[in-house]
């Protein structure tokens, strides 16, 4: 049981390049989330999904797209990377919103630098 995994762990992009970050969870969780973590800004929600085939915008969705084609995977895409997207990206998943099963489990993070 690997929990929540993220690939890649590190990436350096040039402005304008595109890339996809992959999040995978093997806990059969319904809910998945993408956050970015920046110094002094804490964790900000980019997009999230409440189930396979669904996505919704979070606090800072601009410049990102997501897809949840399979329940276990949640992809975060950057179509045209900008230096402002330099950050550490965390994926998280949660079984449900019911108390007792609503703990969010986080991945190890992806450190992205856009030059």
């Amino acid at each position, binding site marked *: 049981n690997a929990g929540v995994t993220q690939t890649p762990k590190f990436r350096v992009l040039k402005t304008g390049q595109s890339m996809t970050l992959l999040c995978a969870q093997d806990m059969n969780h319904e809910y998945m989330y993408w956050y970015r973590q920046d110094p002094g800004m*804490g964790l900000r929600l980019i997009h*999230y999904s409440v189930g396979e085939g669904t996505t919704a915008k979070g606090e800072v969705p601009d410049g990102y797209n997501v897809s949840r084609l399979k329940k276990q995977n949640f992809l975060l895409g950057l179509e045209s990377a900008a230096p402002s997207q330099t950050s550490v990206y965390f994926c998280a998943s949660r079984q449900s919103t019911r108390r007792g099963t609503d703990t*969010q489990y986080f991945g190890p993070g992806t450190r992205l630098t856009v030059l």
Partner: protein
Amino acid sequence: AQRVTQPEKLLSVFKGAPVELKCNYSYSGSPELFWYVQYSRQRLQLLLRHISRESIKGFTADLNKGETSFHLKKPFAQEEDSAMYYCALRGPQGGSEKLVFGKGTKLTVNP
């Protein structure tokens, strides 16, 4: 709007001293509050939640609805407590699917 405020970006104490990490929230209703911790080079993990009224690693947190606070406390800090701490809120407003995080407090426990 839901908001979580952690007024201290940095907090430094000596080993054995008491520590309190402050968290204030704004929410109209009955919130659920959590503390998450991120140790160096590790992923974020749940430390405790107010509903459980538990003590984890010597830490406790009491929800004070009158002061809209959920401060994290430990009577005797240890060096291994050095980490980034995030207070988070969840409520029906805006959908219970989401957690709202504070900006975090970096705790350093000096020997």
